[in-house]
C-alpha cells in the first residue's frame, strides 16, 4: 500500500448494544488492506478496549483509523468527564466501573494497560470536564 488510508467513526457513550461495531469494522478494513494478521489482532484489541472505554465512560467519541505505509494509528478523541489521575488509571486493576459494565465482561481495570500493551507508541491526554484523547500507534515494520 503506497498511500495513507484514513477513516473516522463515531461512537456514542452508553450504547452497549452497538459496542464493538467500530472495532469489527476496523478489523475488516485492515484485512481488506492485506495487513499481517498478528498486527491486525493487536490493533483490533487496542481499538476494542478504547471503544468500550468510550461506551462506558464518555458521551461521544471520534475514532480515526489512519493506515500509512509504515504504521497504523488509532486516534480516539472523546467528549467526556476526563480522567483525573492518568497514572492511577494506567494501573492494572484500578477501575471506576459500574455493575452493568462488569456484567459485559469489562470494567476490571484492564482497558488502558491492554491498549498500551498492544501499541508500539501510546499517548494519552485528558482534560477534566472536556475529554480524553488517545493516540495508539502500531508499527508495520
Amino acid at each position, binding site marked *: 500500500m503506497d498511500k495513507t488510508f484514513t477513516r473516522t467513526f463515531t461512537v456514542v457513550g452508553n450504547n452497549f*448494544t452497538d*459496542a*464493538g461495531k467500530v*472495532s*469489527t469494522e476496523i*478489523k475488516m478494513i485492515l484485512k481488506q488492506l492485506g495487513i499481517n*494478521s*498478528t498486527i491486525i*489482532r493487536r490493533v*483490533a*484489541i487496542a*481499538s*476494542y*478496549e478504547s471503544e*468500550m472505554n468510550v461506551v462506558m465512560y464518555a458521551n461521544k467519541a471520534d475514532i480515526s483509523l489512519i493506515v500509512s505505509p509504515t504504521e497504523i494509528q488509532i486516534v480516539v478523541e472523546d467528549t467526556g468527564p476526563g480522567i483525573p489521575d492518568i497514572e492511577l488509571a494506567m494501573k492494572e486493576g484500578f477501575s471506576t466501573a459500574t455493575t452493568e459494565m462488569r*456484567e*459485559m*465482561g*469489562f470494567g*476490571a481495570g*484492564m*482497558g488502558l*494497560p*491492554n491498549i498500551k*500493551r498492544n501499541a508500539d507508541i501510546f499517548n494519552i491526554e485528558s482534560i477534566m470536564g472536556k475529554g480524553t484523547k488517545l493516540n495508539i500507534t502500531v508499527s508495520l515494520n
Partner: protein
Amino acid sequence: MMKLNEISEALKCETFCGAEYLDREIKFGCASDLMSDVLAFSRAGAVLLTGLVNIQTINTAFLAEIEALVFVRGKIPDERMIEMAIIKKLPLIGTPYSMYEACGILFNQGLGSTMECISEKVING
C-alpha cells in the same frame, strides 16, 4: 492441539451455530468471564470457555482471533448472538459441564493453556 469436534464430544456439547467449522484445529484452551483478561492474555487459535453470554463475548472472540466459543453450565446464546457469530464465522457450542469441570476435561485430554507462557514465567521466575 485438539479438533473442535473432539472438544465438542468430550464436553457433550450441543451446537448452536457453525457446525461446518467443527473440524477446526484448536491450539489452546482459555477460560474466563472477564473479556479484558481474554484480550490481554489469550493467543490466537484458542477455544474460549465462558459463562458470559452476551454480544461482547462474540466481539471479543472475533477480535482476539478465538476459534470457537464454549458456553458452560448449559447457558444458551440468544438469537442476536447467533446471528453475529454466523456472520463472523465463529462456532458457538454449549456444554452442560461447569467451567471447572469443562476445563479439567480438556486439560486432561492434553489441550494446553493459552496463558501457559504467563504461568510458567510466574512459577519459574
